[in-house]
């Protein structure tokens, strides 16, 4: 018994010991670079000469002069709104479908889940091939039934919707989350609603929906944060679809076609690692940070399940 009631100082030391990997990681790999990002956002720095203080010049440059900032921000926000909405609706529909399947449930669950596992680069390369306007299987099949398919990743109007399509292929994680939430709805409530003569829609509206709203909220918020960092698929799709022979490491103009797939994270990379405009890149980073932080705050306030079991 004596051991479990050790004195407060020893207990505190022990807690610190257990937390130490994270305490080091948080300070060195998170807090420090975050402060440094703020510092560099006020500096002119090309990663060779010493940084010099320029006040708000990087900030006014990004917001007022940088030609690609507008398109990149608009594309990112477009993706955040459309992609997240479409994914949540489709993920929920698939979750509902899978809970109604009685025969072969295991097979269907696996079939819907497995594309989620495909590495993003591989999935993107495969999709650019499948949707290739000239000879891709999809347009080939559409053609055989008399539809002339769109140019998908090669047309500024359909490039972002094509990315949404790609993201729907990898909906497996959301489907599983929604499936678990739907199976957790107490079935007595459905029986009670049935006795009251509720139809399928009324049952969804008054029984299912109230019980899954925290999960929907969770899916929306994490979806927004993930889409804020949308990078790999957009970049790879643009590079592969443009068909230009460009190896990694070479300077690229991301966002093909016509900057329609350029996102803020791509611009951070371009500014920081190709143009060596460290200041502007850090300003862009902080724009991302501000939006992500605002969303996270919202998540904390709503306590959508994340901290529910705190005590």
């Amino acid at each position, binding site marked *: 018994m004596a051991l479990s009631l050790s004195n407060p100082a020893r207990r505190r030391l*022990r807690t610190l010991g257990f937390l130490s990997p994270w305490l080091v*990681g948080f300070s060195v*790999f998170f807090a420090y670079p975050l402060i440094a990002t703020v510092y560099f956002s006020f500096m002119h720095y090309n990663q060779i000469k010493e940084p010099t203080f320029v006040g708000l010049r990087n900030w006014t440059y990004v917001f007022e002069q940088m030609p690609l900032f507008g398109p990149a921000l608009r594309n990112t926000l477009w993706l955040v709104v459309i992609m997240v909405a479409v994914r949540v609706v489709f993920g929920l529909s698939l979750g509902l479908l899978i809970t109604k399947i009685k025969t072969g449930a295991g097979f269907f669950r696996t*079939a819907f889940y497995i594309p989620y596992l495909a590495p993003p680069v591989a999935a993107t390369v495969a999709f650019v091939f499948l949707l290739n306007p000239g000879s891709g299987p999809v347009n080939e099949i559409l053609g055989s039934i008399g539809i002339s398919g769109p140019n998908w990743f090669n047309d500024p109007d359909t490039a972002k919707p094509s990315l949404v399509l790609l993201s729907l292929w990898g909906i497996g994680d959301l489907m599983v*989350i929604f499936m678990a939430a739907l199976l957790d709805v107490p079935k007595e409530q459905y029986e009670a609603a049935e006795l009251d003569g509720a139809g399928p829609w009324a049952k969804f509206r008054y029984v299912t929906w109230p019980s899954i709203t925290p999960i929907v909220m969770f899916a929306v918020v994490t979806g927004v944060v993930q889409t804020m960092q949308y990078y790999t698929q957009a970049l790879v799709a643009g590079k592969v679809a443009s068909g230009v022979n460009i190896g990694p490491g070479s300077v690229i103009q991301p966002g093909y076609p016509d900057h329609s797939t350029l996102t803020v994270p791509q611009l951070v990379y371009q500014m920081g690692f190709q143009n060596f405009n460290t200041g502007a890149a850090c300003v862009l980073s902080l724009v991302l940070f501000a939006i992500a932080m605002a969303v996270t705050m919202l998540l904390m306030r709503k306590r959508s399940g994340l901290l529910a079991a705190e005590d």
Partner: protein
Amino acid sequence: MTSTTLSAPASASTPERTSPNRGPAAARARRKRILHWIAVHSVAIAVALLFLLPFVFVFLTSVMSDSQAMSGDLWPDSWHWSNYKAVFETPGFLDWWRNSLMYAGLGTLFTVCSAIPVAYALAKFRFRGRRTAMLLVISTMMLPPQVIVIPMYLVWAQQFHLSGTLWPLIIPMAFGDAYSIFLLRQFLLTIPKEYIESAKVDGCGEFRTMVKIVVPMAKPGIAAIALFQFFYCWNDYFGPQIYAAQNPGAWTLSYGLESFKSAHAVNWNMTMAATLLVMAPVIVVFFFAQKAFVEGVTLTGVKG
């Protein structure tokens, strides 16, 4: 089964209750159930086909001849298995495998070892600032990696001269990954504290309790974070692009694949073969560890 109640036809329920198996109402209800079954399964089969067809087309193209792969044909005239051999013989391809395995293997090991004590403390210790610590973990989990990448790159490149290697990606994982800590902590909350208390009554110290009691009980949670981290590293593109781009010897499969397409600009067959080879390990591992996966995914979203 919850699914039964979800799909039961509502309008037929009252007559069915009073006279089961008899009369026209029951027959109508049965017919409705069968139609419902057919409708649900037809939709499911159609969606499953759409989800699986990309894999089929990618595979069929991967065994076509060079010229046929550009033609838009859907079925290969003859099966060129040698494409796969050619992919493996592409300079660098085997190095990318080795680098991916090193990044994912060491990254996973480091993450698991550092996440266990932190998650244990956050789930089971009572101390001041516990809630704040948890909020900070969630905040870091939510932040785009681009927010901090520039100063981090400068430190690794200028102070430690480690650009052109994967170490700047692997080393930080020994200091706790927020997502893994969060997920494992959620799992540890479900372990009843009686087990831990009785271990302490028996004279176990906190560290021994963790190793002997908590870790064995948390195996499913640990398996989930290990798998997620392995696939995170395996799939990572941004990280290797930042640190390994200058040195092709340090590229990973995910990063190299895209350059592969550039180098074989017109060879969709080779590209698709390589694409499948990058996907293959993930899918194989999934079939061996399905349960841990699904458990992990649900844990993030549902169990509070």
